[in-house]
């Protein structure tokens, strides 16, 4: 056997380590910094079963709100869902949903089964808007200020701890802004 072949596993491994190392630096803080304090990209999504209204940039004007990326195929979204429902029932903050790469029927069945925490849901079946938003996975949640700027991006399911320690204080601050 050629001796060089024996180095192959090492070479592959070092390549992987490179990716892991980059993955570590990118995640999640850098993704945040790229988007934070930029206005929301252009959004114009249909709202299922509604013809009178669309989820667009105007939706986010004049109030602090959350834009939550979810999908019926996403397991972590199931875990997050009860937290969103509770926030909605406490009227803590308006939550807008972005149904990412989801079939409308499946998404609607999901909402029908588990309850609807969203003020409006935008249907991003093709995932086009999610790309503009730099979505890397579901669930992800953007905190949007009164002027429609992204102020924070939360990656992964929001749990109680994340809400109390990170999101709630931040939203308080943003709501105090003019």
């Amino acid at each position, binding site marked *: 056997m050629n001796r060089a072949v024996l180095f192959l596993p090492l070479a592959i491994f070092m390549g992987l380590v490179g990716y892991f190392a980059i993955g570590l630096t990118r995640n999640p803080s850098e993704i945040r910094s790229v988007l934070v304090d930029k206005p929301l990209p252009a959004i114009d999504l249909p709202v299922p079963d509604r013809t009178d209204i669309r989820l667009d940039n105007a939706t986010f004007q004049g109030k602090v709100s959350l834009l939550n990326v979810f999908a019926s195929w996403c397991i972590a979204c199931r*875990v997050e869902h009860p937290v969103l429902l509770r926030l909605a029932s406490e009227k803590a903050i308006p939550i807008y949903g972005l149904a990412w790469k989801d079939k409308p029927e499946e998404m609607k069945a999901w909402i029908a089964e588990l309850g609807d925490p969203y003020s409006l849901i935008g249907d991003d079946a093709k995932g086009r808007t999610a790309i503009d938003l730099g979505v890397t996975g579901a669930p992800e949640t953007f905190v949007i200020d009164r002027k429609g700027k992204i102020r924070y991006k939360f990656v992964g399911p929001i749990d109680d701890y994340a809400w109390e320690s990170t999101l709630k204080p931040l939203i308080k601050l943003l709501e105090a802004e003019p």
Partner: protein
Amino acid sequence: MIAEIGHFCLILAFVLSLVQSTVPHYGAAQRSLALMGVGRTSAIAQLIFLLAAFGCLSIAFAISDFSVSLVANNSHSDKPMIYKLSGVWGNHEGSMLLWVLILGVFGGAVAIFGRNLPPSLLARTLAVQGLIGAMFIAFILFTSNPFDRLDPSPVNGSGLNPLLQDPGLATHPPFLYMGYVGFSIAFSFAIAALIEGKVEPAWARWVRPWTLAAWCFLTMGIMLGSAWAYYELGWGGWWFWDPVENVSLMPWLAGTALIHSAIVVEKRDALKRWTILLAILTFSLSLIGTFLVRSGVVTSVHSFAVDPERGVFILGILVVTTGGALVLYALRAADLKMANLFSPVSREASLVLNNVFLVSITGGVFLGTFISLIARETFGTDVSAGAPVFNFFFVPMMLGLMVFMALGPILAWKRGNLRAALFRLRAAAVAAVGAGASAIIMQQEPWSTLALVISVWLLVGAMTTVIEKAMPSGRDSGSLWSRLASLPRATWGTTVAHAGIAITAIGIAVLSYNTSETVAKLTPGQSLQIAGYELKLISVSDEQGPNYTAKAARFELRQDGKLIDRVLSEKRSYPNPGSETTEAGIRPGLIGTLYVSLGRAYDDGAWAVRAYYHPLVVWIWGGCLIMVVGGTLSLSDRRLRVGAPIRARRAQPAVRPA
């Protein structure tokens, strides 16, 4: 005080692991038995201090000592005692402590049971084990100290994620870790062999029981995780191709390949380089699993605290362990000479084929898991592999593997006779044709028909040896029992484990294409129909649990108008921390499982109810249990027993002496 004692014990264990990782190496180089002996002593001492440290943390959780930061963040005085204790490993710091404790248990076990190993091999194995221990204990001490104090201490803790307050969580991580960490022994043996520069059949015989034990634990751990997801996440899924599931499956696949290739090393003195590489690979995949869950490189439900600093540390450990091992492999593997050749039709060849399949599948799962990371950093695009992508390659390759699994064990070593072997499989062929015909009559989809045919082929084929033994023949008289008992335990192990795979596969094949599902809006008194059953909502009431409140929906299950069972499905609200879980109402059965989950409440007093009928779903986990039984049977074969090589050699003259 308890926390400080625990912390101190952990520091002592760290110092001991440093001693263990250096002195025995030096002793082996100097051929000093006394210095090599330090490896055993320090491994056992390290185990004792790790046990003490873990015990201290457990006491802190049991008595709800909220002055310990970890307890305050993850426990609550209202929690039942069992979840106070399982809460020890329901968080990052505590689970790492469990990880090193299990590492210490395995190291201590090698020290205690490995007395018959050549002293230098034992010394080097323990030294490598000590180095792994040192790195992970350092990781805990420097980045994730579970004994940190909190001042002032809170009146009560913030509770454990209710999804994790479950018997499944109490048992799933320990088994999983025993699997992951158990593979470290195979790794340490491989590195020791590379340093020594020789791999002998005896080496494989020493490594195999440890690997097999780790494999059994990992199988059990994965099964418990899957069952937990099924009944706790509340939507009837049992496998999601979630990154964290994948990282437990990869060491399982590689470890399965390893226990098979080690057989070839043991019996035929071949495949040595490959087996060493597999041993390195299997443990490395376990480490990657640990890295992935704790670094946040890929998002997943299972992720612990996303903390890049910890990720960097674990990545460092991975580089030292795997990178170092692969450097050593590249430099030394050429010295491992292949002693024996074999024909393409032979037991060896079938085991090679097994390895080709398993390693390819591992590679596919690996690529699918990390494709999003690789694509994002290389091409700047977002690609993610979901279940369809995984099923696309996993199902056909697994089925291909299963076709050959029936054949391999009945081929002879060195040069087999394919025709004779196929003739011996005639019963399996008949059964497979029968299964195919029944599947077609029952109008199964093509994929599930094919899967059923192959699974039944494997199920009956796996039992060929046993069936032949059960048939009376001239050569072998005696009672049925004595004839069956004359088969070696290892043969029984193979038979049972392979049959377990077949049973799991049958469960998956039938479940995947025959699940029925209904969602209905029900008010108490109304019912829904599913799979020939009538499910009637009787009442929804408020219940008070020890640390939660629940909406409890009571159902009656009727078949042909007759009441056959009652089902309880709950939605629980835990105030500490505030969150909800779905406790699905499950009526398990060998044929089919009825699964009821309670959805949202409507304003008019109605409830969304989702009911599933899952045929053969319990076969999936039952098959896993059978695999574990098979592995344990094989482990109990005296040939494999650690410390029995000398006696075994006398009993088995066919095995070449070391």
